[in-house]
């Protein structure tokens, strides 16, 4: 039945065949991987791109005058071009980092310490991942900024009335907010947030770690000032992430880490910095991982975001309907605009026990606070279980989850 609502033109069987790991068995059961929101699996195209880089085109980049180094540099910079067009940015605006977390820390340490003054305020929301909270707390400690938390509504959406209040005294210089919650699945209205912030003289940083996987992102159209994401959630390698920053902002920012490649010239008295993006990439970068990320972008582009979004919408609708139909299972987050992240609790059963008992059935979900401890408390909870969907997730897997949850209830005598 479920298969019938599959999108036309979206050949799920072929997509699944691209991911070697999906044919694994776990505890003797077929793997049902519903933890892509933590990190996605890698298609063969990504793995092959990395192998090819290491087997045929590898050397250190930028400073080599020989053939292999030129090829490796070409590949690395082509990856930057790929990311730039993926986000609709210029290549100078794309900085390679380790992950979304490092991207936000980079902004906090450079923009934060140069463009923000003690007493300026940074606003984040109640639904941030720790990656978009802790760096600002650390900046509060070291630099004396004020950190403000904008409320969310009970349905899991940004509370714009509260946002107005947070901005009322005119001291907010940066709004740092998730583009998609990794617990509630909520998409934030980013164009509106950009206009809102800019009208009030603040910059907008978007944490796109979740959003970028599910939707086409156009940083120009959004008018975002900073945008971060991680390669590993986008079917790309671990160890590589992206910071987009508007050119004039990056130009004005001091360096982050010091070392090779980020300098223009070095003397003991004074060193001068390279132009962006190189200013922010100290030392040997994640060369092979950048190549893998480029392959991941090609992969999702080939499927196409309209198809991906439709697929995930169908999965999410099905998941919400299916889980709601199980008595005692409570989905958290009811935003109007929400995506393939479904967190829930089960009456009388701790999320850890849910996850362990699902795992025994081959079903991988995550349980805990999902690196959003304050949000979990805001919801009045200690932890939730969470199923997240990727391009390879099927309707049958959602049905398997529902069946699995019923078995958990049986074990707990429900």
């Amino acid at each position, binding site marked *: 039945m479920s298969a019938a609502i599959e999108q036309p033109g979206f050949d799920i069987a072929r997509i699944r065949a691209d991911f070697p790991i999906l044919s694994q068995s776990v505890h003797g*059961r077929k793997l049902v991987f519903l933890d892509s929101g933590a990190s996605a699996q890698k298609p063969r195209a990504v793995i092959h791109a990395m192998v090819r880089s290491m087997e045929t085109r590898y050397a250190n980049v930028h400073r080599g005058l020989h053939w292999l180094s030129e090829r490796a540099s070409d590949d690395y910079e082509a990856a930057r071009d790929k990311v730039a067009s993926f986000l609709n940015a210029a290549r100078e605006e794309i900085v390679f980092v380790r992950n979304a977390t490092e991207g936000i820390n980079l902004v906090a340490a450079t923009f934060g310490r140069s463009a923000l003054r003690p007493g300026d305020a940074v606003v984040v929301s109640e639904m941030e991942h720790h990656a978009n909270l802790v760096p600002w707390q650390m900046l509060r400690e070291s630099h004396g900024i004020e950190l403000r938390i904008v409320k969310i509504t009970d349905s899991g959406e940004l509370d714009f009335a509260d946002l107005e209040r947070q901005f009322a005294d005119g001291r907010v210089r940066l709004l740092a907010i998730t583009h998609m919650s990794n617990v509630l699945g909520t998409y934030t209205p980013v164009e509106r947030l950009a206009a809102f912030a800019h009208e009030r003289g603040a910059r907008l940083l978007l944490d796109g770690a979740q959003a970028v996987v599910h939707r086409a992102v156009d940083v120009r159209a959004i008018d975002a000032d900073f945008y971060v994401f991680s390669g590993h959630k986008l079917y790309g390698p671990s160890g590589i992430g992206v910071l987009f920053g508007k050119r004039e902002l990056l130009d004005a920012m001091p360096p982050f880490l010091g070392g090779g490649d980020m300098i223009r010239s070095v003397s003991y008295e004074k060193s001068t910095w390279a132009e962006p993006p190189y200013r922010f990439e100290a030392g040997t970068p994640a060369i092979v991982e950048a190549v893998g990320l480029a392959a991941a972008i090609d992969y999702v582009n080939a499927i196409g975001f309209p198809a991906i979004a439709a697929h995930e919408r169908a999965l999410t609708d099905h998941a919400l309907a299916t889980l709601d139909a199980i008595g005692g299972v409570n989905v958290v987050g009811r935003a109007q605009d929400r995506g393939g992240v479904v967190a829930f609790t089960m009456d009388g*059963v*701790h*999320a*850890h*026990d849910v996850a*362990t*008992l699902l*795992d*025994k*059935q081959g079903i991988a979900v995550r*349980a*805990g*606070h999902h690196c959003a*401890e304050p949000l*979990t408390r805001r919801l009045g909870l*200690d*932890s939730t279980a969470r199923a997240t969907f990727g391009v390879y997730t099927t309707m049958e897997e959602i049905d398997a989850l529902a069946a699995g949850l019923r*078995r958990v209830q*049986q*074990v*707990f*005598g429900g």
Partner: protein
Amino acid sequence: MSGAADIGDLYQRLIMERARAPLHAGRPERFDAEAEGDNPMCGDRVHLRLSCAAGAIGEVWHETRGCAICIASADLMADAVAGRPRAAAEEMAGAFEAMVASGAVPDRAEFSALRALSGVHEYRSRHRCATLPWQALRAALTKTMETGHGG
């Protein structure tokens, strides 16, 4: 893949009983030592209180917020250490942690009930759930000794 039994081997009857209706849960009016253990990664939290006399543990009470494994572990621990000399209880804590780490059940009478938790071994990420009460016990015992309390 029909019923629940085949997937629930970790969640044996004893564990489920104790998780649902622990025998030693609660907060006594009087106690000689207390300690908390928490695992911020998942929010599990155990608050232990115990009576001591003449270098031995009297009774143990726990307030546990957490998963079934954690609650059952706290409750079975309370059974197991009641009346034992401190040194023996500490030794048991070590033996329990070793059982969880290795999966091998110690061949000793005191583990006849505790063995129900040996299955946790297979779930490395759940080890902490089972051992948290024992960590809290160690902390409580250390404190008692420091203050000379109940000695």
